[in-house]
């Protein structure tokens, strides 16, 4: 009888072992990739029939401390609690039965380290290099005297006309650089255009009001307008109070600018920068006052409002291209041409991606999506 039970037990263990092997059970530990160190990635392949597993950690293979209770469903766990780079950590994955008893355990060890390159961002690096190279190439081509065709942007060609109109009417111009701070590229793009506009205003002996809603933008805009007057040879005509701060609050700012539009009745209004819900309130008030309105933003949700209410709208990239376009410098125009090449690369990538996906080839999508 004893022999029978012994044979039965051995057979059971053998079958259980075979089952484990057949299901390709594995437990591995490795440095968590593409991070700044301090983390170890644990991966396992355990049958889902087990209710729970315990992960323990040790630095000497003897004193294990429990760090997490996990389910086989998870498949991975990142240990980033008090992990020191260069120190070897030993892990034990204990598989529990329904009674909470350990029926199997697996071991693995790994060292954490910080990487010098994030391989997840290879596709981003490739795109950056391609775009950067094409822009740099065209900048240098333009420097060497190569003639580049840049399509006309009506909104920017109208700037001089708007300033002239303001001078004839004896009314000021209003420039609104959006409601975001200097850390938004759209604000910087708007301020770049302000430099060109203020120069024209100085040349035409007109006046400009620049209400801002961020203190950092205030000091930058003031400096830009001052330099523009200096370039135009009219530093004496610069009025420091023409650039002024209203408030940081979105609708408080809108109320302030609307008040200025209704009181001053500017001949032309410029809304160039980052805008949110205030875009239409500003543009419609400007429309009611009868001003020539030129707007520009890269906010896709606000562009329709500007298109509906303004005479000219710079859509997306046109806002960023405006300064280069207005400067008419070969260097800057070259960068615009480079951007167009970037656009062509993206269009080709999109088309190739669509065709590959239609044929069930997911290489490009995976490369761009997961990396």
């Amino acid at each position, binding site marked *: 009888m004893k022999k029978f039970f012994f044979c039965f037990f051995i057979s059971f263990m053998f079958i259980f072992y075979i089952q484990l092997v057949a299901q390709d059970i594995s437990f591995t530990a490795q440095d968590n990739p593409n991070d*700044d*160190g301090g983390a170890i990635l644990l991966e396992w392949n355990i049958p889902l029939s087990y209710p729970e597993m315990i992960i323990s950690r040790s630095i000497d293979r003897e004193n294990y401390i429990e760090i997490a209770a996990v389910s086989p469903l998870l498949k991975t766990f990142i240990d980033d609690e008090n992990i020191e780079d260069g120190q070897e950590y030993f892990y034990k994955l204990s598989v529990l039965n329904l009674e909470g008893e350990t029926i199997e355990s697996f071991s693995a060890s790994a060292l954490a380290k*910080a*990487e*010098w390159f*994030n391989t997840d*961002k290879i596709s981003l690096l490739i795109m*950056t290099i391609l775009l950067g190279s094409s*822009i*740099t190439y065209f*900048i240098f081509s333009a420097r060497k005297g190569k003639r580049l065709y840049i399509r006309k942007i009506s909104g920017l060609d109208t700037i001089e006309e708007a300033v002239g109109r303001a001078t004839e009417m004896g009314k000021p111009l209003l420039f609104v650089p959006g409601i975001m*701070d*200097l*850390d938004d590229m759209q604000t*910087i793009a708007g*301020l*770049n*255009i302000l*430099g060109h506009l203020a120069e024209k205003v100085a040349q035409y002996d007109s006046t400009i009001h620049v209400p801002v809603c*961020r*203190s*950092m933008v*205030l*000091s*930058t805009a003031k*400096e*830009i307008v001052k*330099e523009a007057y200096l370039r135009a040879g009219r530093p004496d005509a610069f009025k420091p*109070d023409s650039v*002024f*701060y209203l408030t*940081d*609050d*979105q*609708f*408080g700012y809108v109320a302030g600018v609307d008040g200025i539009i209704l009181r001053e009745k500017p001949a032309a209004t410029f809304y160039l920068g980052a805008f949110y*819900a205030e875009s*239409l309130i500003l*543009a*419609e*008030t400007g*429309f009611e006052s009868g001003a020539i309105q030129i707007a520009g933003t*890269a906010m*896709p949700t606000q*562009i329709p*409002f500007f*298109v*509906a*209410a303004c005479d000219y709208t710079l859509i*997306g*990239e046109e*806002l*960023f291209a405006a*300064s280069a376009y207005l*400067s008419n*410098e070969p260097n*800057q125009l070259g*960068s615009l041409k480079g951007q167009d090449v970037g*656009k062509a690369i*993206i269009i080709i990538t999109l088309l190739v991606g669509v065709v590959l996906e239609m044929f069930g080839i997911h290489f490009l999508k995976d490369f761009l999506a997961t990396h």
Partner: protein
Amino acid sequence: MLITFLVGALIIVSEFIPHKPFNNLSTSLEGWFLIISGFAIILGQLSLFKVNIIKIHRKAPNWPYFIIALVSFSVMVICGILWGTQQQPGLIPVSDKMLNFFGVKPFDYIFKYLFENLSATMFSLLAFFMASASYRAFRARSPESTLLLIAAVLVMLGRTTIGSTLTGWIPESLGFLHLPNIASFIMKYPNTAGQRAIMICAGLGVIGSSLRIILGIERSYLGGK
């Protein structure tokens, strides 16, 4: 310009290097920006005071409004400093009499019952402006604006209960003709495609502008040409 080049280049490089010290570079620089903008707020307040006082002094048109602006600003600052806010204690404790009268601290009272309502009033103007702008935009003057009008009407009807009622009788086999489905299609495909195209091009524009600034070609933001 050298600082701009170094900082710009470092930020680009740090995007691809997870190793210290590059991993925290972007966060640190954002922190620096916040500190600088914190100090710059004083400049903004000074500008606000200066411009308003000059206008009051010169008796500019509608000058009483500028007095209201300065008084409102001063009241909020004084209330905030003296009695504090809900989260921050002020210089002096709020008396029970004051607390019974306002229900909250004076700053919070003004903020909640005055400022928030004024902001909401400004925001609500959007609805009326949207109607007037839509009226102009949707006039069928050209094939493009006619298309815009048709798309807008379909989306508007499809997003309301009247859209379902109007096309409810169409059999399920022709479900794509249901107004809510047409509205969803327009929003999901042509609208999303257009928005993404703008976003991709804007992204390219940002890269181009950034490179111009980093390489020192674009100097307008420094006051240069």
